[in-house]
Each structure stands twice: as C-alpha cells, then as structure tokens.
C-alpha cells in the first residue's frame, strides 16, 4: 500500500543550525501519527517541509504519492499552531474563500461548507464575524477550513495548545472520527497525554533527529517496568546522587538508573514490577543514612522514552531553553 506520507533523509539548515537532520518517516493511510519532542526539536520545520511551506535542503517528500508542491497542497490540509483568521469575515465567508482557493466545484461548495460546519458544530456561529469567536471556536473554524477540500492528509501543528480541557477533548474526539473516515492525520504536540491518547504511531524527535519510533505502547514497553524518581534533596549534589544511585542499583528489581541533572540531580530508576519496591528503596537509603526529599512511582510514559534516549525529560529541555532565551535576546 502506498504510504500517505513518505519522507526520506529530510534535512533543513537555518544558517549554521541544523534544524532537521536526516529524518525518515513513513506514515500509512488512515493513521494518526504523532511527532513528539521539545520546542526547537525540529517538529514544526519537518511539518512545514511536508506542507511545502519550507524548502528543504535535502531529502525527498511524497504526500499521497505527489511530489510537486501545488499537487501536495491540493491533497493536504494544514492547520497551523497560531490561528490566523480574517476578523472581518464571517465563518461562512472564510470557508467560501477557502473553497475558491482550492477550486471546489461550484455546485458542491454549499454542501461541503454545511458538512464541515455540522461536523465541527459551528452552525450557530457560521454567520458571525470570526473576530467575535472564542479561542476554541477559532480553532474549530481553522480545522473546518483545513478539512473543507476533503484532504487525504491533515497536518496539525499543536492543535490544542492554549485550549480549555473541554475543547481539547472535543477536538480529540473529532480527530478520532476523522481517522475512522480514512483521513491520515499528522500532528505535533508537546502534550504527552495528547499523543499518547490519539496517535497510532509516534516519532520522538530531538535535535532534528528521530530518536525513537513506534506505537506508544511499543515505545513504553521498550523502556521497561515502572519508573521511580527519587530526590535526596531539593537540589542534590551530583556526587551524593551518584552514591545513592550506586546503593540502589544493587537492588534486585532495579533494571537501570540514571541521574537527571536538569531536575536537581534526581535519580530515575527503571524497575521490574514489584509491590514492595518503594519501601525497599527507602530502607536501603536509610541504612546508609541517605535522606529522601521525595519519591514517586509511575507507569512509563512517552516522556520516559525521551528520558531514556536523551537523559532529559521534554520539560527539562524546554526549561533549559527558556533559561537560555533571555540571554540571547539581550545580545
């Protein structure tokens, strides 16, 4: 079967920065495919290259078998992270403009607009100016515009960022319905639970490379058992954390461990299922007079997949970036 999206050895440089470094993606039709990674990992650049908004420096892109920019745009719908609507047009007028730009047959325009308005529950607001819409309504109209020409592939960049939980859940439900109707959806998000809940397959991207790829459950099972995070102090010294880690790696249920510097040298352990693991860890550390500031146990998440591959969580990377940003701006 021909893939809906096939990306081979995609590269893109901005000046000296390699934003995308040889990414390969193969996305089967009718899937929701998630791109996950911290800000600046290369997700949006990858999407923009696929959508023909950015010219890649190397590699090849096929969308529904098409390689030429205009043909790709015709079979693809793109909903950008920031909602950009003409404030003085009504929702219906905006969709009519979209219909004209995509050359929809005149006789089908009214029906198609009615269908997407119904699908996204926008009928009530269709004849109001988009400038009066709430954030959630704007996003829904943006989605409607992306779907109007019935694209085979829908590309969504952070589709629910900044939306309230009800709207987010409604959009998730809508995306599932869309997948059921055969539309291929490529989405980026740094909401881990969003990718986990929606995506059939995930590519985790860091520094412009795919560092892990598979179904969410495959990726999480590769990480192994439960995750235990121990902090021996709010901001522990590296040496103390390493000593504590050495004590714990001797425990029979501990599979692996690492120290996360970005979280105040917290100790992250991957363990085999064991109901007494927490108490055994506490006993082991107290035997050696090591105090515990906090201890938490969880099932592995996609963040743990990222952590096991890079030594940092997605949030750590974003916090580190946020700390660097003001310095850059001052220069």
């Amino acid at each position, binding site marked *: 079967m021909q893939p809906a999206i096939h990306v081979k050895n995609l590269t893109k440089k*901005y000046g000296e920065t390699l934003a995308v470094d040889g990414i390969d993606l193969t996305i089967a039709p009718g899937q929701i495919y998630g791109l996950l990674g911290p800000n600046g990992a290369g997700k949006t650049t990858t999407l*923009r290259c696929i*959508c*023909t*908004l*950015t*010219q890649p420096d190397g590699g090849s892109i096929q969308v529904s078998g098409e390689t030429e920019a*205009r043909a790709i*745009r*015709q079979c693809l719908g*793109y909903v*950008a992270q*920031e909602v*950009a*609507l*003409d*404030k*003085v*047009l009504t929702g219906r*007028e905006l969709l009519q*403009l*979209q219909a*004209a*730009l*995509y*050359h929809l047959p005149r006789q089908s325009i009214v029906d198609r607009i009615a269908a997407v308005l119904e699908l996204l529950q926008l009928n009530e607001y269709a004849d109001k*100016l988009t400038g009066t819409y709430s954030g959630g309504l704007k996003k829904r109209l943006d989605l409607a*515009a992306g779907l109007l020409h019935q694209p085979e592939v829908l590309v969504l960049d952070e589709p629910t960022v900044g939306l309230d939980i009800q709207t987010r859940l409604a959009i998730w439900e809508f995306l599932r319905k869309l997948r059921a109707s055969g539309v291929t959806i490529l989405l980026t998000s740094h909401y881990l639970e969003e990718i986990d809940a929606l995506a059939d397959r995930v590519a985790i991207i860091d520094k412009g490379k795919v560092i892990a790829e598979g179904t969410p459950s495959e990726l999480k099972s590769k990480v192994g058992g439960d995750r235990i995070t121990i902090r021996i102090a709010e901001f522990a010294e590296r040496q103390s954390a390493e000593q504590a880690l050495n004590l714990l790696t001797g425990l029979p249920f501990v599979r692996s461990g690492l120290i996360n510097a970005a979280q105040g040298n917290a100790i992250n352990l991957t363990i085999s299922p064991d109901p007494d693991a927490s108490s055994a860890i506490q006993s082991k550390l107290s035997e050696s007079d090591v105090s515990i500031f906090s201890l938490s146990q969880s099932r592995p998440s996609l963040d743990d997949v990222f952590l096991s591959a890079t030594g940092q969580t997605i949030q750590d990377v974003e916090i580190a970036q946020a700390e660097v940003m003001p310095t850059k701006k001052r220069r």
Partner: protein
Amino acid sequence: MRHWHETIAIARRILVELVRHRQSLILWSIFPISILILIGLILAEGTKISTTEAFRVSAPASLVGAALFFSCLGGTISTIVAERESSTLKRLFISPLSGISYFLGIFIAYGCIGLGQTLLVYTVAAFFDVQFSGSLILGAGIILLSIGSYVGMGFLLGTQVARQIEDVNGLVAGFGVPLLILGGAFFPIAFLPPPLLLITQFNPIYHMNQALLDVSANSKDLSDPDLILHFRFLVGFFVASIASGWLAYRRMLGQERRL
C-alpha cells in the same frame, strides 16, 4: 480559469473588508471630493480663472495625484502588511493560490475602489460644469495604468520596506507627500521654482496628472507629442512598478516561508 476564480476570491475578500469597515469606505469617498473642492476653489481664487476651468484642471490631479495614490498605493501596502501581521498570508500560502492571482486580486480590488473614486470626482466636477471632453477609453487606460503603477509600488514598499502597520503612515507620508507636491497634485507645477521643475520631469505622478489632464480637459489623443511623452513615461513606470512589485513579492514569499 483557475487564476480567475482565485483572483475574484482575493478581490472580494478585500472589498468585503472595506465594506464592513464602513468608516474607511466613507473616508475614502469623502477624501477625493474634499480634495477636489478645496483645490478647485483655491485655484479659482488664487489664479483668477473661472470655477469651471479651475475644476477642469483640478479633477485629474485630485484623482490620480491624490485619491488613487492614497487608496491604491497606501491601501496595497496596508493590505500586505496587515496580512503578514495577522498571519493570514500563511493561510494563503498553504493553499494552491498562485502568486499571479494574489497580485491580480489586489489589483482588481483597488481598481474597483479607484474606479469608484473616479466616478465620484467626475460627478462632483460635473456640478461645476466640467465634462470629460477627450476619449473615455484613453482616459480609462490612463487611470488603470496609474492604479496598476500604484499597486505595483504598493507591493514593493509593502513587502520590502513596511514591516508593521505603524510603518504604513510614515512611509506614505515620507515617500508620498513630497512626490505628490512635486507632481502637481495639490497645486499646478507652475508655482514651483525652476530647480524643482526639473525634478518634476522625472516624477511619475506629474506624468499621470498631465496625461489625464491632456485627455480629459484638452481632448488630446495619442497623436499629440506632449501626451505621447507623458503616456510613454506612464507606461514605462507601470511596467517598472509591476516588475519590481512582482520581484519584491517573490522575495517576500521566500522570506515569509522561512519564518
């Protein structure tokens, strides 16, 4: 046909926006009328010519020298800058819309506004017994060439110079008002000192004014050497404006897609 649908969609969008902003529509209507009446009355009083003669001379200057300048050039710059600021340009870029259609859509929208202003100016002038005495086709050609030139210049300035909406007023005032004065938009160039008269010969607005004046007031046609000179200059400026506007637009596409 594909370009036609896209062009009409873009033009309609700009015109709908203008109609929704009723205040702008009213101001764009008041502006050429007030300029015409003011210049006409001042000219009649200052040069002791008849009111009809003063309005006959003022009508082309008020139209191509002032009204179309602000609506077509200023409007094109505002449209492009506002699109960029609100990110709606990106929505257009991701669609199969061609650059030619976008350009033509803006041209047609501002062409409609310009033709509306033309009707207003000559309707008001008619109250002062002014008639368009020359070839209507030639007159319409000159007005369309002027609109095209302003839209082309608007693309150049809107894509390459004005980065935000606040730049538009400064740009139109700083770049435009001296050109308008030197082009005879507000008073006849006979009032200018000789060194400035020399500069005027290279001012496209002067040639637009003179070409329309020669046709509308003096019934000249393209066999007249003076009109040929102005007309050639106008055609050359039109071609240069469209070409530079198009190149600037292509350059902007490259820049915007990197953002």
